């Protein structure tokens, strides 16, 4: 499903964020990406939906070489991947409902189907009652849950979440994790960068630890591993 071969990323400012990554993630896996701040977790994730491109190395998503897809076809790649951004990336001028609906509008879904599905996922993240509010009127955690709702609304093959519980209280964090478990059980690949030791150690899955742009550890059913 996702394959990285010797992926190297140097940002224009000279910082090397990924220093030759080799990894393979199969369809249906649940993977935690852990590691200290600045290790390259977000950069790793941004490669998947082509927010960033590798400086060198090869990236395959669903068998497609990302270096070879045409610019105009990038949207199609992105529609197959649901992303929970570390900074949420909600559209400030659209209300909660419209923000989530946007991911379905771009794939030209029928309005009735959009309505039904959006209300469904808003219910899943527990924010159906705030559908008419704007992002600026929501708390950080609420915005994060909207971002989660948007990432799963078009039932993508992969959900990539960059610290999806970063702003949530423990209880809501567990709710979101249960949601991810459910989606994963239905065959969706989940990739999740996190600093949450308790979650990683409780809901055991494959753990990839990144340090200094390299994979330091990769074990199935591993623990968080860093001592706080």
């Amino acid at each position, binding site marked *: *499903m996702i394959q990285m071969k010797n992926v190297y990323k140097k940002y224009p400012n000279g910082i090397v964020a990924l220093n030759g990554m080799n990894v393979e993630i199969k*369809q249906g896996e649940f993977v935690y990406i852990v590691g200290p701040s600045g290790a390259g977790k977000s950069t790793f994730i941004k490669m998947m*939906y082509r*927010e960033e491109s590798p400086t060198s190395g090869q990236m395959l*998503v*669903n*068998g*497609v070489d990302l270096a070879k*897809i045409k610019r*105009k*076809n990038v*949207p*199609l*790649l*992105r*529609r*197959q991947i649901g*992303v929970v*951004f570390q900074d949420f*990336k*909600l*559209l*400030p*001028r659209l209300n909660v409902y419209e923000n989530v609906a*946007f*991911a379905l*509008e*771009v*794939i*030209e879904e*029928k*309005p009735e189907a959009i309505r039904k599905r959006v209300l469904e996922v808003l219910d899943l993240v527990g924010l159906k009652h705030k559908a008419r509010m704007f992002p600026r009127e929501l708390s950080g955690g609420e915005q994060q849950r909207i971002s989660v709702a*948007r990432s799963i609304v078009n039932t993508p093959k992969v959900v990539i979440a960059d610290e999806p519980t970063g702003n949530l209280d423990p209880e809501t964090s567990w709710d979101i994790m249960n949601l991810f478990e459910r989606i994963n059980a239905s065959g969706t690949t989940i990739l999740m960068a996190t600093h949450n030791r308790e979650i990683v150690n409780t809901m055991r899955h494959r753990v990839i630890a990144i340090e200094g742009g390299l994979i330091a550890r990769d074990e199935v059913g591993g623990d968080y591993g860093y001592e706080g």
Partner: protein
Amino acid sequence: MPGMKLEVTTAMKARTLTRHFRESLKSLGRNGWMTFASVSAVTVTLLLVGVFVLIMMNLNKVADDLENDVEIKSFVSLEADEARVTEMETAIKSMSGVESVNYSTKEEELSDLVLDFGKEFSLFEQNNPLLDVFYVKATEPQQTENVAKEISQLEGIEKVKYGEGKIEKLFTFLNTGRNVGLVLILALLFTAMFLISNTIRITIVARRHEIEIMKLVGATNWFVRIPFILEGMWLGLLGSILPIGLIIALYYNVTEFAQPKLSGEMIQLLDFAPFIYQVSALILLMGVFIGIWGSFMSIRKFLRV
């Protein structure tokens, strides 16, 4: 793993277009004072352009009227008898570049004078000093000179008269006027586009973050672009309402005022209809074009996400 079908289809569903229209209208409202600023910019420029077009088109009309009015007055000498006059008329009619020939006897000439200048001239009725005249019109104003020369060589023509030097000067004057007007209109339009695309650019710069997000959640360039372009179109449409209204009112009053004064004169203003509706359509089209073009140009560079 089944390979992804990575091919964007360009065909857009009707419901998506509906969605884009809805979004563009919502955006107008949510953009508040920026909408107002853009619409004002369009309004001011279109008003100027509109007034200019009115003036230019009428100047053009006046020039045409004047050009068409250039007649060659050919005086028939006293020696020519009736048979000769008929011969000359046939000869003139057969010349190339002649549109019409009108014969006017010296009695008719005198009564025209009396009509124009008053009773005093009726004194001459006893002893008419005037000559019979052929009024000749050339098909093209530029041919007037050649035709006049040819007529003057006919036997039985005393002399010919037409605008001569003055006419050429008038033509060059009118042509320069037209060209200057055209350049001014173009300059004005160019400034307008610059102004408007700048205003739209400010709103888009503020929204580049949004554009980036839209692209990251899978929107194609056209999906992002069309609502912006439609928004530009609305700005242009809204901006053309006031200019069209004002110009119709203005021209209505001008023609109401001038038409009676000009009745029977050779110079006429363009009729209110359909002229003013054509100008209105032109203003509307310019507004829409300016709006669409402005949005299109401003959004271009922000789509590279």
